[in-house]
């Protein structure tokens, strides 16, 4: 199983960059959560009003006038179901497949303006209620007070339906403009159109002044209210967008700070505070050291351990520490193996051995350094051999190697892998460290270019 995530899609380590889409989704979630509640409350209100109209007609008008309110009551009940979409989803899950498809088509909740069949059914119910109250049926006309109250109820339902259509969240959520432009502009006319139809129908409900007053003032309020609501929803979404922008901006700034903070780049954090060092030469020295640490760390970590496997890769990473060392020992690898052919264990031994022996040689200002990594085939794979020649003028003798020295640590490491470490001291100030260990791989030899340019430390 490969669990390491690709770095290609990231601008900084472990910091996902594609979360802005999720932030946008969260914005939609938050707006919807609020809108769901409002839509549900409105649907309940319409249901209640429609039931009120039926009751009013049944109590005040003899005969079957109350039947005129049933289409609206039915349509608003459907609308209430539509607004309770957790219930819709639960019901849908229990339905057989053909019915479920129908259900899916009827109860839709997309993020852009759309054809809503439940909404259309409710509009038809509202028109039927308007026609039952006013022109042409005038079912409540026998009782002027009932006609006025019936008109108030109808205007209330009209207002709620207009609010749902003109002030719906989907007008604002459709940021990608997937819906035609005219659909977005048409919402300004929903209020006036609804008011005109309301006035035209309800004017005839009763000639009594209260009913006429309701027929005129009610639709006017609905019209003005629809514009106010549109502005309100726009402002709500705008506020949410501003908040989202601020969040993204803040997160980006924090991420950017993190990239250069002590958490991710200790050297950079030190360099940021270099002004605190009053002595100029000391400040320059610390700065140089930070650059070198940065470069080494970059080679070691950012490139990934797989980038440092063979002798030359370890050497180049090490020499970033010091430009003088880089110039002097940069071309010290005489034989090497292909990095891709080495196992992790082999790479680990090579890393520890080269880094330790080369650092020791460089610290003693060795006048000559040679590193050779070779392999000899064996029946189980191969025997890898790493030799490091150091001419530093010193002498290495068995009795001079303390138990806690890095050379002994290296010996223990190689011995733990059934390998050996031999030392040949020529007596002329040069010595060869010779490590050999078995490997199950058969790595190919790597061709060493005559002069390979050294990477400069990135600043």
């Amino acid at each position: 199983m490969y669990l390491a995530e690709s770095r290609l899609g990231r601008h900084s380590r472990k910091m996902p960059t594609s979360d802005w889409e999720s932030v946008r989704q969260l914005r939609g979630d938050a707006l919807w959560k609020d809108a769901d509640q409002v839509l549900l409350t409105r649907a309940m209100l319409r249901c209640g009003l429609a039931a009120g109209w039926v009751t009013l007609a049944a109590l005040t008008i003899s005969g079957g006038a109350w039947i005129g309110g049933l289409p609206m009551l039915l349509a608003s009940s459907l609308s209430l179901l539509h607004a309770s979409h957790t219930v819709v989803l639960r019901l849908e899950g229990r339905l057989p497949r053909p019915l479920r498809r129908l259900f899916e088509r009827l109860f839709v909740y997309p993020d852009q303006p759309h054809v809503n069949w439940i909404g259309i059914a409710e509009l038809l119910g509202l028109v039927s209620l308007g026609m039952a109250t006013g022109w042409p049926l005038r079912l409540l006309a026998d009782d002027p007070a009932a006609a006025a109250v019936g008109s108030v109820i109808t205007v209330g339902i009209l207002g709620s339906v207009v609010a749902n259509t003109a002030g719906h969240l989907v007008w604002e959520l459709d940021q990608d403009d997937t819906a035609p432009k005219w659909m977005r502009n048409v919402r300004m006319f929903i209020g006036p159109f609804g008011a005109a139809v309301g006035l035209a129908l309800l004017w005839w409900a009763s000639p009594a002044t209260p009913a006429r007053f309701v027929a005129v003032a009610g639709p006017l309020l609905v019209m003005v209210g629809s514009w106010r609501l549109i502005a309100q929803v726009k402002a709500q979404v705008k506020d949410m967008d501003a908040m989202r922008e601020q969040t993204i901006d803040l997160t980006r700034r924090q991420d950017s700070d993190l990239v250069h903070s002590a958490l991710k780049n200790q050297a950079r954090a030190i360099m940021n505070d270099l002004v605190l060092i009053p002595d100029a030469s000391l400040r320059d020295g610390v700065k140089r050291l930070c650059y070198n640490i940065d470069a080494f760390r970059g080679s070691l970590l950012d490139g990934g351990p797989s980038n440092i496997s063979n002798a030359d890769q370890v050497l180049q990473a090490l020499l970033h520490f010091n430009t003088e060392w880089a110039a002097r020992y940069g071309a010290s690898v005489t034989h090497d193996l292909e990095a891709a052919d080495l196992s992790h264990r082999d790479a680990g031994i090579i890393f520890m051995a080269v880094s330790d022996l080369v650092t020791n040689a460089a610290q003693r200002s060795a006048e000559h350094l040679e590193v050779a990594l070779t392999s000899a085939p064996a029946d189980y794979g191969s025997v890898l051999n790493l030799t490091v020649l150091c001419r530093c003028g010193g002498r290495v003798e068995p009795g001079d190697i303390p138990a806690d020295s890095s050379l002994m640590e290296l010996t223990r490491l190689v011995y733990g892998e059934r390998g050996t470490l031999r030392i040949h001291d020529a007596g002329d100030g040069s010595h060869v460290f010779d490590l050999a260990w078995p490997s199950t791989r058969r790595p190919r030899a790597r061709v060493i270019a005559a002069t390979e340019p050294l990477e400069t430390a990135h600043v």
Partner: protein
Amino acid sequence: MSKPISFDMTPRAAAEEDDARRAALLSGDLGIDIIVVDDQPDHDWGWFSKHLSGHRRLSLESVHEVERFLAGDRLPNLPDPPYEAELAIVDLSLGSGQPDGLQALDTLRQHRDTRDLPAILNTNGLGDYRDMLAVLAAQLNGGAIPVAQKSGSDGPAVREHARHIAHARQADLPWPLTKAAPKPLLHVQEVIWHGDKSRPVSLLDYLLDLPWKRTYWKEMARHKSHADAAFEARKRHGSLTDQDDGRKQDYSRAVTKQFGPVAVAWALAGECLHELGGRLSIIDAQLDPRYKEFSSSTGAQLVAFATKYGPVLSSQFVPALLDRLRRPARDEPGT
């Protein structure tokens, strides 16, 4: 000019090892064979030789090498046979692009000779997705597993653990795989999700038991978009078609309802699965005093949860492993 000399350092290391083994024997420690599955040679400049010097290290660097070892192949870096491994120390990460320690542990558990071999997870930390790998390893281990950091402070505890195992082995006593290790080793347990409505269930089973859930995590790991992942999961395993794209909202909310409580409980509990003591519950989390300081949406927590664990939950190996672990449980006759 001095006289040229040539000498081998290896006998000195061998002598040190012999001395250490002898000293360990004198102090009552019994040397055992320990399988160490790690992509690095003895890391931290000889962690093993420092802390487990009386024991023999059988170093295997990959799942492939574990398989070869169990098949009886001779590996050149191992000491001379015969081998009688009594403990396995498994690194969770075995190098980029390589099968990880969890698969190595699974390989050990599947082989008849190492099915009951006590194991310790060895890692540099459980701060990232390895947190969930450790919980999975606990599940694979029968419910719990000790975890040691690759640090000097945990070394003596591992030594103590190995000593107990060796003594139990000598006395022919069984060693339960889930037995707690001495402090400061972590005792990571399989996490059981106590949802408010359903019966308690293994968290990983809860997250991965149905195909649509697996698709969801896969999509989350790939695109990190909750709505798209929820819709894709529903589309592939339900009745939706491409034309129904507009209904993403519904399914994203439905999926949030399914996984949201887990993510919120996880966030309230400090976002550390390995420190839960095997129990994740929204009620427990709400009773936690930290609850008052918590303020974030469920969706945001779910995205955070998926960002951290998406790669583990969407890998091929983990669901297959869970399927295998669930099968025997189902096949068991009712009591």
